[in-house]
């Protein structure tokens, strides 16, 4: 305390807190002198009213003799401060200089910090660890060319590449290679699912050769248009596990089969292929039966199990079941009469087990069959005038019992002519024109 004399500038010099030295690293030590000055203030607490100023600007002087002087100094310092503040507000260049100084301090701090890090790394021995021999350095140098990544690889190089499958020796696109391999090798979830389904279907097939119902779905070989066949066959390769498949399979109903046939076809095709292989009948293109090559016995047996209606387009017999919705019973009867003579009877008459496909009652079916005969006067190629032919067919049917012997050609042709009409009608309405028959009769008669 004795050392501290009331000096004009001395006090101020001491009072001014010194600038912090640039601390290395991020460690900031607390102000060293502030604490000391605060401590010095303690004994001055007991002093006079000017003490509040001491906290603002701690003065070393605390002797009672210097009280007035300290007050004067206090006032001056306050004034100075006010001036300083106003100065700082106005003096932009000074502010700028200060800013630059602060910036320089910060940068120097960072550099020093970096130096310490490097020094420590050198001392600990890990500074030069990432340096290898110049050859390796060149190998793994960062590549900075357009179109290449930093390793020097071309982007999207593997998109268009083709790989050769080791199993089937086919060249497959790279992006499709993995799924193909999965199927090719028979490993993976999907391929086992497909296999299981195929096995299940083949079992069903073997069971249901005598079961007419299943043949509806399976033996749908009688497609008129070849392109349709191809298109549907291609579809079979696409999604064997799509849920639509399983849904459509449930539709054993004859009508819905027509609409969902595209979905069920792949299985049908595969199974029909199997059928054709195992079947003793002679098949051409595994789509239908060419009746020219069949003997009478074979024909008979075939006609007892299958629809057998000859398609106008392909001249082949329909291999669907006896309840095939594409052809009417009349057509089937006509075919049987054509092949086996007038005494041929539709097997359906004998085995009237289930009426899933048609909503016609048995009585109505009988009526329609009876009325069908003798449509020899019709022009068969008129599919547009199916209704008229139909009506006439019904009309002429009054003489059914007598004119059972119909001419082969005409019956065959008229079969086709009305088949489309009837078939299309059947697709729309479950009940073919059985109800309106009495009225038609009346009109014609």
């Amino acid at each position, binding site marked *: 305390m004795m050392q501290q004399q009331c000096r004009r*500038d001395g006090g*101020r*010099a001491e009072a*001014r*807190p*010194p*600038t*912090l030295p640039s601390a290395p690293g*991020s460690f*900031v030590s607390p*102000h060293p002198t502030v604490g000391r000055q605060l401590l010095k203030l303690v004994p001055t607490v007991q002093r006079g009213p000017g003490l509040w100023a001491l906290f603002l600007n701690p003065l070393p002087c605390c002797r009672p003799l210097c009280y007035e002087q300290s007050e004067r100094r206090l006032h001056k310092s306050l004034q*100075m401060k006010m*001036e*300083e*503040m106003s*100065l*700082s*507000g106005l003096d932009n260049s*000074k*502010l*700028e200089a*200060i*800013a*630059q*100084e*602060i*910036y*320089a301090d*910060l*940068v*120097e*701090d*960072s*550099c*020093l*910090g*970096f*130096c*310490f890090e*490097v*020094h420590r790394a*050198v*001392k600990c021995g890990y*500074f*030069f660890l990432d*340096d290898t021999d110049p050859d390796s350095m060149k190998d793994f140098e960062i590549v900075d060319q357009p179109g290449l990544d930093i390793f020097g690889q071309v982007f999207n190089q593997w998109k268009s590449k083709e790989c050769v499958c080791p199993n089937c020796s086919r060249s497959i696109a790279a992006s499709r290679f993995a799924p193909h391999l999965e199927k090719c090798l028979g490993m993976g979830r999907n391929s086992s699912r497909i296999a299981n389904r195929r096995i299940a279907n083949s079992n069903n097939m073997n069971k249901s050769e005598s079961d007419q119902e299943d043949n509806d779905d399976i033996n749908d070989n009688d497609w008129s248009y070849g392109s349709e066949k191809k298109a549907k066959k291609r579809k079979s390769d696409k999604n064997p596990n799509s849920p639509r498949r399983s849904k459509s399979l449930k539709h054993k109903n004859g009508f819905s089969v027509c609409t969902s046939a595209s979905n069920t076809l792949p299985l049908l095709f595969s199974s029909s292929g199997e059928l054709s292989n195992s079947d003793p009948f002679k098949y051409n293109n595994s789509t239908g039966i060419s009746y020219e090559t069949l003997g009478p016995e074979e024909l008979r047996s075939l006609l007892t199990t299958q629809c057998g209606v000859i398609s106008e387009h392909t001249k082949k017999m329909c291999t669907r079941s006896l309840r095939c919705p594409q052809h009417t019973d009349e057509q089937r009867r006509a075919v049987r009469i054509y092949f086996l003579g007038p005494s041929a009877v539709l097997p359906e008459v004998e085995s009237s087990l289930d009426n899933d496909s048609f909503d016609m009652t048995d009585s109505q079916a009988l009526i329609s069959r009876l009325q069908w005969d003798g449509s020899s006067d019709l022009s068969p190629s008129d599919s547009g005038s199916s209704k008229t032919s139909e009506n006439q067919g019904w009309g002429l049917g009054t003489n059914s019992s007598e004119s059972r012997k119909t001419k082969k050609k005409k019956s065959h042709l008229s079969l086709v002519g009305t088949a489309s009409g009837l078939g299309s009608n059947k697709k729309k309405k479950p009940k073919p024109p059985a109800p309106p028959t009495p009225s038609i009769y009346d009109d014609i008669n």
Partner: protein
Amino acid sequence: MVVSKMNKDAQMRAAINQKLIETGERELLKELLRAKLIECGWKDQLKAHCKEVIKEKVLEHVTVDDLVPEITPKGRALVPESVKKELLQRIRTFLAQHASL
């Protein structure tokens, strides 16, 4: 009077510095500067320079004192202009806010 002016400046600087530390702005600025320097590659450049220096020195034990005069001026020079501008901007903002105590 010159002395007093010097004192005034020094005092002002001191006050500002104190304010910087008290509000924690100095630490913030330091971290910001460090992050920016790493981002812009300043650290890697300086590291490469360090390696050269140390290899040249070929001393058994490199001391901090050896490194500092080599590295610090290069470090100051290597700071990119954008980083410098941004930092100065922040300091000026701080000064504008806190100059009127």
